[in-house]
């Protein structure tokens, strides 16, 4: 029910050229606001070799393990404001390049593979030699994964010799092994979040295979499908029913339950996608109401993209100045790390870290399921905030917002014109030094037939203002036609005042000089015209 009476039109010069509308800043979606709220910094600048893998511990305080060169670096997730190396870091029991660190589900142990083909298990809390060494692979082991669910004694590993092994760690014995599990290097693997015995592997032979150690080796792999490109990363999505695979520059989402059906293909990267991980979008408040899960993917084109696999849309994308090889997102939701090929780990931290830790024990299960509702503090009249409650209430999605009518902002001269204070409007515009608004006011006064009366009523100071304005702008081509006539009129009308006042005489002298210059310019222009026009006539013939 808009008011249909006429809007108020501010005065506008007829010759005023409107500037192009200012480019409107893209309004931030809540999602991009979330991703921008991380404070960025660079971690571990001492490294120079590629950071091939980054892994967050599943339990508080969410340590980070980074595989780089012949060591696994450990960073303290509790450190503030940024991650700091643990005192016993790095774990250096490797004879060659270390790969694929993996935390056990309780966060106490860390397993890692290596170029030498040896899988080693370390303590996380203190320095020391490896607790266990699992020897089976003849070639480098790029995939070592602990099961995600409460299974503390097994892990699986896959190597460049195409061997897939399922280990009983305490006894250093392979429970099951699949020699020739793939026809090329095994470079990716992921344990199912719902079942400790199920895991998926991806290989450079373009295939992704799913294994279940409970069934007979003959029926394994129980599922296999082709990604279409060498598979760089495989990740189970939280439900356990969906699997994301990265290879080439595409990420594909598969439905495992329906037998490996391709659901969606994300083609948002320009170069090979190197790693995937799960993230979670959270509200600003440090509450535990979950937040929507996101699939983060990084690529050597330097982009990290956030993908909403509920709506199958890219929701955010972020650029880094290097080739990205690995990515990790803290289960607490307040840290994000990205590893590059030149050894730099880029880190983003959020601020609410302290509170997060206090009730952070829930966070481990957060990715997988139920979180108890935190108790909301009830405001009492003893609290100061009680009396300010609801003041900054934001409308909810379901609320119908009635916008307050925007207040019309009027320039000073418009307000005066509205009151029919014509001379005052002219003086205000003259003192504001914007030529276009002065001309606009003058044109409006012409339309009201009040300009000459206004000029006649100006006192000496105001007349000085007007003469100065005319001196500056009378020869501007856009306004010249109008202002030259006005100058003439003003001088005719106020000749006596000009003669009696010294200051005004100076202004008029300036005006005279300016007009002499203008005449000079016009004359030279005419000369040029005289030279050119015969030429044009001749060429026209």
């Amino acid at each position, binding site marked *: 029910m808009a008011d249909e009476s006429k809007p108020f*039109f501010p005065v506008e010069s*007829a010759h005023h050229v409107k500037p192009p509308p200012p480019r409107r800043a893209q309004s931030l979606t809540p999602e991009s606001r979330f991703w921008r709220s991380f404070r960025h910094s660079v971690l571990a600048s001492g490294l120079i070799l590629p950071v091939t893998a980054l892994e967050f511990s599943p339990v508080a305080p969410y340590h980070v393990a980074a595989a780089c060169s012949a060591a696994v670096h450990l960073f303290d997730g509790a450190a503030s404001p940024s991650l700091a190396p643990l005192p016993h870091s790095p774990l250096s029991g490797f004879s060659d390049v270390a790969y694929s660190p993996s935390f056990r589900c309780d966060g106490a142990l860390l397993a890692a593979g290596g170029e030498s083909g040896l899988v080693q298990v370390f303590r996380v809390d203190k320095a020391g030699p490896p607790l266990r060494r699992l020897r089976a692979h003849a070639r480098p082991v790029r995939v070592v994964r602990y099961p995600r669910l409460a299974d503390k004694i097994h892990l699986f590993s896959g190597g460049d010799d195409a061997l897939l092994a399922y280990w009983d760690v305490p006894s250093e014995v392979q429970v099951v092994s699949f020699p020739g599990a793939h026809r090329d290097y095994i470079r990716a693997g992921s344990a199912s979040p719902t079942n400790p015995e199920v895991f998926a592997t991806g290989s450079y032979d373009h295939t992704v295979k799913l294994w279940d150690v409970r069934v007979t080796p003959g029926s394994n792999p129980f599922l296999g499908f082709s990604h279409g490109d060498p598979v760089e990363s495989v990740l189970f999505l939280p439900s356990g029913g969906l699997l994301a695979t990265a290879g080439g520059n595409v990420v594909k989402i598969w439905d495992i339950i329906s037998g490996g059906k391709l659901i969606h293909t994300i083609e948002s990267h320009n170069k090979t996608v190197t790693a995937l991980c799960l993230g979670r979008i959270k509200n600003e408040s440090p509450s535990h109401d979950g937040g929507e899960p996101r699939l983060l993917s990084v690529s050597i084109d330097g982009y990290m993209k956030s993908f909403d696999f509920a709506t199958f849309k890219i929701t955010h994308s972020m650029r880094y100045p290097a080739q990205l090889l690995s990515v990790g997102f803290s289960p607490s939701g307040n840290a994000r790390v990205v590893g590059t090929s030149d050894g730099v780990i880029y880190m983003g931290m959020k601020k609410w870290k302290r509170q997060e830790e206090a009730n952070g024990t829930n966070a481990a299960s957060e990715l997988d399921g139920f979180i108890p509702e935190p108790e909301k503090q009830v405001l009492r009249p003893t609290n100061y905030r009680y009396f300010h409650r609801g003041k900054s209430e934001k409308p909810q999605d379901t609320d119908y917002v009635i916008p307050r009518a925007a207040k019309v902002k009027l320039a000073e001269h418009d307000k005066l014109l509205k009151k029919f204070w014509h001379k005052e409007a002219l003086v205000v515009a003259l003192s504001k030094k914007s030529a276009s608004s002065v001309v606009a006011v003058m044109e409006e006064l*012409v339309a009201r*037939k009040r300009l000459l009366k206004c000029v006649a009523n100006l006192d000496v100071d105001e007349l000085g203002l007007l003469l100065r304005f005319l001196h500056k702008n009378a020869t501007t081509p856009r306004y010249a036609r109008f202002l030259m006539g006005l100058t003439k009129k003003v001088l005719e009308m106020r000749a006596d005042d000009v003669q009696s006042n010294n200051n005004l005489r100076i202004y008029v002298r300036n005006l005279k000089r300016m007009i002499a210059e203008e005449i000079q310019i016009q004359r030279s222009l005419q000369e040029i015209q005289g030279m050119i026009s015969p030429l044009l006539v001749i060429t026209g013939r």
Partner: protein
Amino acid sequence: MLFICFYICSHRNLRVGSTFVTMIPGGQSLVSSPPVFSHDGKKLLVCTGCTISIFSTSTGMKITELEGGHTDRVTSVVVVPVAVPSSKFISYCWTSSIDGTICYWDFSVPELIKKVKVQLPIHSMVIPNISCTPIGSSEKTYNLYAFISVEDLTISADENKAFRGQIQIYNLTKSQRVRGLLAETRKPQLLSVSKNGEFLGVTNKRKLDIWKIPSDDFRIDEIKKIKLHHTKKLTAFAFHPKLRMVAGGDVTGRILIWIGFGRRKFSGDSQATDKKMNLTDEEKPGVRNNDDADSCSTWHWHPSEIKFLSFSSDGAYLYSGGKEGVIVVWQVDTGKKKFKPRLGSPLLYFTESPDPSLSCVTCADNHIHLLKMPTMEITKSIAGIKLPFSYPVGHKGLCTQVAYDETAGLIAVLTEDYCVQFFSLFDNHEVSQVQVCKRNFQPVDDVTLYVALVSVSLDGSLMGTVDVKIPEDGLGGLVSLKFWKRGSRIAEYSLSTVVYEPHSDAEISSLAFRPGHCMATTSSFGGDFKVWIHNSDIKLNDQLHQRTGWRCQSVGSYKGRPMTAAAFSADGSVLAIGAECVVTLWDPDSNVLVAVIGDTHSPITSLSFIGNSEYLASLTGGSTPQLAVLSTSKLRLSWSYKLVAEALSSSRDTSQFAVLVLLNSQDEVDVKENGVILLFDVEDPVPVATWMVKKAKGGSLAFVPANPSFDEIKAIDGEKPSLLVYVNGDHEYIIFDPHNMDNRIGKSSQTSQIALEETGMFGYASIYGDLSNLNPKQDQVPEITFPPSERPWETIFNGSSHVLPPLTKLCSTFLASLIEKKPSMNER
């Protein structure tokens, strides 16, 4: 030769059927007299010519029309109030007209019930005791007395001092005039009555005459009268709804408030008050001439004449308005003011509705705005066609302020507040308004900025306007040419290009679009014409886009003569420019002069190619007016008449054209401004048909194709009919078939726009719902109320079954409704 004489106002005689009529009238004035709300505030009754149109206040659309009762302008409407909520559906009203009749209507059906003949033209009518006898009340009904202000036709208008106006009393129940005159005035005056029907008043030059109306005994000599004096001519006044207070407004914009008027004379014993009078004589501040009032105070805000005064229904506020187009809300107790500005036009009337949150204000530009009350926000506007305005003195060129979008059946009207109004001819309502100049409009006497020309291309996709700013003492004048592009919807235009001073400072005489091309031409009195073309999006480089817009393609002139008219031929291949006295033909693409025809004695004012023929018609004005038909193939004059022609229009696909001719020459001053429409075939100088019309000065003509949506009859013939539109000087128009006056053309059925069942409530009912009926007798007998429609059985069984009374009870009502006869039919 067919010769039919008609007036715009009396065309109803020719009406045949309800949906097919020989003529479609339209563009009636909505503002000739104040509108009236129905008793529930859901409908607004507006006098439109000789009919009363009923608009819905919730949608602003026309619901129905009361027609057939009056043959001349309707001057006032009085709605009969309703007492009992059960009779909600009953809606009756009294109307009076210039034709000397008073009609009684049931406007829900709508149906004429009763007609009373007064013989004299009625200019105003009030029925003070109408609220005493509301419909549905069981009390004894009184006789209804109407006070009417009539014009005495026996005295001729030439006598200056004669009393031509009379105020008479009429007994409506018995259709009898009460003997005697209440008063005589120079001119028939507008009557006004207080809300409770106690007082009647009329402004009489510098006096205010107030009568106290007796409750039942209406004898002229017993009605008491007082006078309140002022020093200026009074123009408006209003009674306070509760107190003995009257407000009067004068020509200078002052508002006078008399408090406690008539305390001496109206309150019974005259002897007793005489004694009192002497005592209180000194204590009457501001009261002149020992008038019968306690005090008089003056408020002044309005700079010019006050057009209306109105108290709010609770009496706390006084609304006033006038030429400045601002409603001023005065707090009666304190005199504090609030304003509702920018209504865009002088105001005429202000009407309060029974619903306290709704009222309406009538503007002089033929608009009625419905206001949401405390905030005075415009909720809906009932828009009539805007009225013509007068050009300033220096204006040269054409005086027609209209253009036609023939394919869409729209008329584009230039308005005073720098707009172009698009008005649908067949539907008789406003389609849109395009603001041409972005300037705040103030109704003032001397025009300094006006829209001089408008032209719409044949398909309606392009529009061109020219607006002129008049220089002040040779300073700051500006002519700007604007090109507009139509948006997605009909008659929605967005600005495409502005050209400042297209012909340096010379005024533009005409603007024409080339059919089938994005090309336009403007001719100016400065001696040249320009051809404008539209740049489509041209990509020059990868980065540099040339902006789309209109630019000048070529300039032409002929011997330095002022170019006075321009027209494109129907196929767009020839451009004809009237160069003062001769017609020059140009090739618009190459800008080459092809031929020169004719030689008239005075400047050509208008040019038009005639349909698909090779002929060209030109009008010349000045001292030797002429209508000439020129042949472009033989390059010579074919035939001509010496006529003062106002407008020219040719039909697109035949070789016929129509000319609107003024009967008097330009020097004479004829009040009636009668004219003739002549329909010519191009080969034959004898007109095919002739029609007499009124108010031809400033009128215009156009051929429009019949509205395809209801073109049923013509589809059989196979040929596409074209109708002629005549718009008179007051922007009233009529559409008819020029070839066959008996042909019926479909009239768009306004009744299709009936508002849906309106079940809103207001006031107390909107907060707490309807009061339950506390009458115990009615509780025992469940009664079904239904509107007295022709098919009552439809309404009886309406509703859910658990609400309905048992069938045994319904049966008797149902049968009774079948045998019910309408008593109104007998009375008629």
